[in-house]
């Protein structure tokens, strides 16, 4: 059995930042487990940038402005005390990344370059061309190698295990190469496993990895999922594939055009235009398409276009060359000479594991911490600003690392040997049973039916009757999952078994998304109800909490939103 003081699960920005923090503390035994090589995470796919008030470009920008933009962007669902804490720490965390060697683009004064991003008053999004997440992810990896972080690579977390006193005791994980269940005892566990966008399968910008494993494991361990219905649809996914085309396209001055050649954002956000926040732009695009002003009809193949041809060739080749490559490869469209087909794509889970203390990232389970997209602090509320997710990952990754260190210093290791043994034995038996089945519904079919139901019925526009249908579909799929066909009984690198567990995680979280979306009978941020088109502060200026009851049923609850300085106002751009 492995034994650590701090165990981090997940190797994206939040996970590696947490591990780095914990590893920098003398004498602590720290490990990071990841189901793939550490640099392949969703963080590496983030393109446009990371927000922080550095005043390198806009001297007049203030922390206060960034706080307000984030609160307003969240449609007032973000907790304002947490947002203040978060925004105040962004600049130091970005400077730290720079100090770690992250190659940021530069201003003429040799400082970190900053660009405009949606929903923000000033250019405060720090960037490295259009590969910001990639360079941050690799820089953190370099630092983790330097600090000798112990990577348990190709290990896949199966469950969080609790000690007798209810605090965290460790995790059980599937050692993919060896094909066996491993027990890892840990005094503190940091969950940084990312989002769950794969519940929409291909209509998402997320990697295959974003399967909500940490959310589902924490849910089973007694944490609530907070605001799970808040799913961000990035307005500019590439038309055919849903692959991300960075907000930098809008930030650098690109236009969005309908089939009449109109800059339609004029109607939806007359002052911010294309630089309105993501929820506003996504809604605008879908409205244009629904009303027949898109290209390629009104069905699944419909799209509008992003046009950057009026920008200088230098801007496109220097600042947007990564997405130019993507547009050429995946859309056969060279942005230098033709517009790029775009349509919203599932991008980010604002909701997630309910964090109880934003200053430590602690959850309700003692010793269990959550950070990054897996967590809901909540600083993004109903809509996250572009550039605030990389910031979230590094700020709260560090905070969770600090929180775990403090916890370990004040608490001794709990004896969870029996619980770990029981969990390991149960998963071992489960592996044998599910992989030896010779019939049942193939796991890929279950996954695809889930994705179709989620996209068509719990997508950008939502209404009760369709969501009830989606819920019925999910309940049916959850039953079928119990007897599904996995189709591979080999021990070594059994990806079919990993995919099976992943689809289980997705079903668990998808059901919470639908229940949350049904509860919230209003339209707020990215949650758009066709049957309740207005925001309803009287009844829904509160967080959704979905938890697992002792009877094994989902419980729907709520908690207060923290409002300190900014009273909710109507949100226009």
């Amino acid at each position: 059995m492995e034994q650590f003081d701090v165990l981090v699960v997940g190797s994206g920005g939040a996970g590696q930042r947490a591990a780095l923090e914990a590893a920098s503390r003398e004498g602590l035994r720290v490990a990071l487990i990841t189901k793939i090589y550490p640099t392949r995470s969703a963080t590496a796919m983030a393109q446009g940038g990371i927000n922080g008030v550095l005043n390198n470009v806009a001297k007049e920008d203030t922390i206060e402005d960034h706080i307000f933009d984030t609160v307003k962007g969240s449609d007032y669902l973000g907790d304002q005390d947490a947002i203040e804490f978060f925004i105040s720490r962004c600049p130091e965390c970005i400077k730290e990344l720079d100090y770690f060697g992250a190659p940021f683009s530069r201003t003429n004064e040799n400082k970190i370059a900053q660009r405009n991003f949606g929903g923000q008053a000033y250019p405060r999004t720090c960037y490295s061309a259009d590969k910001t997440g990639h360079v941050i992810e690799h820089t953190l990896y370099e630092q983790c190698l330097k600090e000798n972080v112990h990577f348990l690579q190709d290990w896949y977390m199966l469950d969080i295990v609790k000690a007798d006193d209810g605090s965290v005791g460790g995790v059980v994980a599937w050692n993919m190469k060896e094909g066996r269940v491993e027990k890892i005892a840990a005094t503190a566990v940091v969950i940084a496993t990312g989002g769950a966008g794969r519940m929409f399968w291909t209509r998402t910008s997320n990697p295959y990895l974003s399967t909500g494993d940490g959310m589902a494991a924490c849910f089973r361990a007694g944490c609530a999922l907070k605001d799970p219905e808040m799913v961000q649809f990035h307005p500019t996914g590439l038309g055919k594939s849903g692959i991300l085309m960075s907000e930098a396209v809008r930030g650098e001055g690109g236009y969005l055009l309908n089939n009449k050649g109109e800059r339609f954002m004029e109607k939806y956000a007359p002052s911010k235009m294309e630089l309105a926040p993501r929820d506003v732009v996504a809604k605008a695009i879908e409205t244009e398409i629904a009303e027949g002003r898109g290209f390629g009809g009104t069905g699944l193949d419909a799209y509008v276009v992003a046009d950057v041809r009026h920008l200088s060739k230098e801007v496109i080749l220097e600042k947007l060359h990564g997405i130019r490559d993507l547009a050429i490869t995946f859309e056969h469209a060279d942005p230098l000479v033709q517009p790029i087909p775009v349509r919203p794509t599932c991008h980010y889970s604002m909701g997630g594991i309910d964090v109880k203390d934003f200053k430590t990232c602690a959850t309700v389970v003692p010793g269990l911490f959550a950070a990054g997209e897996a967590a809901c602090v909540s600083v993004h509320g109903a809509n996250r600003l572009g550039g605030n997710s990389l910031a979230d990952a590094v700020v709260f990754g560090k905070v969770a690392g600090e929180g775990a260190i403090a916890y370990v210093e004040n608490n001794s290791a709990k004896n969870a040997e029996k619980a770990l043994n029981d969990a390991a034995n149960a998963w071992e038996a489960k592996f044998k049973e599910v992989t030896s089945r010779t019939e049942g519904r193939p796991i890929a079919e279950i996954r695809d039916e889930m994705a179709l139901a989620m996209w068509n019925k719990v997508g950008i526009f939502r209404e009760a009757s369709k969501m009830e249908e989606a819920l019925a579909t999910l309940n049916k799929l959850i039953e079928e999952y119990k007897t599904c066909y996995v189709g591979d009984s080999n021990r070594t690198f059994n990806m079919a078994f990993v995919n099976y567990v992943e689809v289980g995680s997705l079903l668990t979280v998808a059901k919470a998304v639908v229940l949350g979306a049904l509860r919230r009978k209003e339209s707020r941020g990215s949650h758009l109800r066709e049957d309740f088109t207005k925001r309803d502060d009287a009844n829904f200026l509160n967080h959704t909490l979905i938890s697992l009851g002792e009877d094994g049923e989902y419980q729907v609850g709520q908690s207060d939103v923290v409002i300190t300085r900014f009273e909710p106002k109507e949100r226009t751009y």
Partner: protein
Amino acid sequence: MRQITYHIHRYNEGRSYVQTYTFDYEPDRTILWGLQKIKDTIDPSLTFIAACRSAVCGACSIKINGQAMLGCESKIDELAERFGSDEFDIAPIGNFDVIRDLAVDWEAKVNRLKTVAPWIFMKPEYTKTTATRQTPEDFKKFVMNTECILCGCCASECNKLSAGREDFLDPYVYTKANRFVKDSRDDAPMAHVNPAFENGLWKCVHCMNCISRCPKHLKPAKDISELRAVATRAGLSNKGTRHAVAFKQDLMKTGRLNEVTMSLKTDGLVDSAKQGLYAMRLWAHGKINPLELIVPHKPVTGIQGVRTIIKAAEEAEK
């Protein structure tokens, strides 16, 4: 109905075999889509790794008809046209240990990467609270190297690695080392150059497969030659640096290579003597003349021009 066929090189628990799968063609699909299609509808046991499907994570590198590529950005339509066939040979990338089917072992590569201290030694004038300063021009000097996605395509058909992995690092490791050497903020370039020098920097066989295979258009072989230049300038000494220095001295002096002194300067007396028989054969064929040891060449006509070019190159290097 048009059919697409993959002949996949599979491996599991010591057994290697090629398995053929055929499925319906769909326009505008990628090789990775085909693999997923097989796993979803024909054979769930087919094992491969993929993550971003947008050519930024580096997970899905495989050999398609013998050439390393990212499965996610390789279009079936384009490859069918290029190779003139709807049948594809799909194998794991080369020079990696295979775990199973198309999944290779990256964990074994981590220590090789760590050889060159792949992290920055930040100059002391910068701190975590001040952040760093860098001119846009200095940023441009190394930013290309930071685009490496660690996909391993450069290593897959590296002829030197195929001949032996012990005394040479994977090409991307040299690219990583050079990323720091070229970063104006790094305070200890030799901390990256020295281990590269000790670990095969002169073993590259210049086949350029790393450059032609890199999906991000990076140039590992160029990084290797840049690192060699830094090593030579820093006075590090091995046969490679001595050869380069002797080469330049000869050109400066006479505009011609003196093959005899070249061997002595590069290999030393003992190693040169060991090649006596080989030297005799070269002499017999008129390739070298031992008299050159005593009677040096006369400078070639136009030696001033040669010297001007060398000086201009030295100037440009500064």
